[in-house]
């Protein structure tokens, strides 16, 4: 083996490793995005904080972008920051003062998820899982993991049409009409 051939094969190996790394850290184009609508004082939404962290941990590196959306217009930025800190939520967030994201996704409560594919098509809207079936009706363990399943399908490249589940939570108030 000549030295040149050896160096070339090293370079080739290095390029393979880099692309694998890119795949892993999600530096490639996102394969989908999730907006999760939350509020600082909704007990149902807050109860989901640990699950939201797990979802981000499991899917962000595989190409799913997560954004927490706070739809309450009168919130102070400082309340959002302290809320993120209080519930250990290490997320990008958006304060949706004009309800642009609320309107685009059609969500009505917190917590509610909206999932878009890489073509920005809405493919899922609704519950994170089935722990709540009604106000006060709470399962201790989820039996249906709606959001997790949609993200797995999206990453598997499955053809998915839009579907939705009926969310339970604190209603997003309409913007005051001027």
């Amino acid at each position, binding site marked *: 083996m000549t030295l040149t051939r050896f160096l070339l094969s090293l370079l080739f190996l290095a390029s393979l490793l880099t692309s694998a790394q890119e795949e892993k850290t999600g530096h490639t184009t996102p394969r989908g995005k999730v907006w999760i609508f939350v509020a600082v*004082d*909704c*007990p149902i939404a*807050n*109860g*989901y*904080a*640990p*699950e939201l962290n797990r979802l981000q941990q499991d899917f962000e590196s595989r190409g799913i972008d997560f954004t927490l959306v706070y739809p*309450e217009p*009168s919130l102070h930025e400082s309340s959002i920051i302290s809320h993120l800190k*209080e*519930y*250990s939520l290490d997320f990008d967030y958006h304060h949706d003062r004009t309800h642009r994201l609320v309107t685009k996704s059609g969500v009505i409560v917190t917590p509610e998820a909206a999932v878009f594919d890489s073509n920005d098509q809405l493919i899922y809207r609704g519950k994170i899982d089935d722990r709540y*079936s*009604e*106000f*006060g*009706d*709470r*399962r*201790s*363990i989820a*039996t249906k993991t709606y959001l997790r399943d949609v993200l797995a399908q999206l990453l598997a490249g499955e053809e998915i049409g839009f579907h939705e589940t009926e969310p339970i939570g*604190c*209603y*997003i*108030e*309409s913007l005051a*009409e001027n």
Partner: protein
Amino acid sequence: MPSKIFAFLILLAPFSAFAEVTYHKDIAPIVYANCTSCHREGESAPFSLSNYEEVSRKAKTIARVVDDGYMPPWHASPKHLPFQDVRRLSSDEISKFSLWLEAGKPEGDPAAAPQMPDFPKGWQLGEPDLVVSMAKAYEVPADGPDIYRNFVLPLDLPEDKWVKAIELRPSARSVLHHSLFFLDDSGTARSLDGKDGKPGFSGMGFRKSGSLGGFVPGATSKRLPGDLARPLPKGSDIVLSTHFHPSGKVENERTTIGLYFADSPPSRQLQEVQVPPGFGRGVGIDIPAGESNYVIEDSFTLPVDYEAISVGGHAHYICKTMEMTATLPDGERKVLLEITDWDMDWQDTYYFEESVILPAGTIIKSVISYDNSSNNPANPHIPSQRIKWGRESTDEMGSITLIGVPVEADDFTRLSRATKVERAKILTSLGRELINSRVASRLPRIIKSLDKNRDDNLDASELPERMRAALLLKLDADGDKSLNPSELQALKDWLENLKASEGV
């Protein structure tokens, strides 16, 4: 000019129904009277509802939860005897929230606003006579299933006390869901506390020597009426039996309670009437997996005239309905409590508006139903499993308890004895268990193996912990907390009689 105004008013008339609903005039009175006592700074509800801004921010959610009947939390049916401090909205009040929303949540004229009730900060009944806190905080994880945990509060009281009321102040309001106050005079709870390395202990592995009621957020703190008070004998510890809901973040709870004492012993002693007794142990709750309508019932005949002041139920996750009725000797039937949508989260005690007199001979009957199918979202088991009576929250219990006094103070002993006989049902079920597990047929050998110090007596410490209290209650004729050979012979005879009578 006036005619123009008149025309304008005529034009507006069809909308007046909407235009009329404003925050200050219509919404604030309902909110202040029913919501604000918990939904305010420093109290247990998740957000405040004490002014226009706060109520307006949650208007849609409020309209939905009042329409569902989820809020305000109140599970006793309003069709029967009236209760005190009712937190239930009329259909007219409920519809006002949606009308207000449709109208765009107008604030209206602040001059029309009702006076905000004078909600006390801190202790609701004023400075308590004794304040006790948990020695160490208990850590509640960010998520996972609900937690039931008991914490011992040693009191070391030098003398007997009579308790008019107890208040509880949680340190982590969002996770502490409710607490029951039990008494333990044996020191067992103390010895269990902290054994697993964390404050408190789980399960109900101690014999309750009494109860001081409970704390549920939303319930109004109140002193017992008249000169009534609950006994708190010296040497008793209070055991807080607390239910936690994880909130999404790690929280540390260190509960403080305040006790309010009576100056003198009451003229009549309180006596609970629990049907079925032992939180349902005696009726043998055993619910097959998938069974959507399992019903238990039991009744008790009052031996003396009784004055009932409050009623409350106890069950776990899969209970659906409960009803307690009283059939008086003259045939009149009173429904004392009906719950058609049991929710373990809101185990309240309901105080009758006026105490209910039940003459001797009245039959008190409880009927309790359970849904153990997987269609029941409250079912803790997936897929559904056979559920039996037990002390863990995923087991089941079921009973309804009246609290009251004999009309004649002298009747206390008779009433108390009758409720003790009633509790013997628990023993019958224990006996059945011993027969079925074939303990009965191997009794002499089992007694020999339990008799560690070989003195032919089974001392309390040698008895299996789970049935210690029940066996002593049934068999310890001389009250020395030990079963001597003749008392053990009585155990043998009892099991044989039971076997014969049940044809096992």
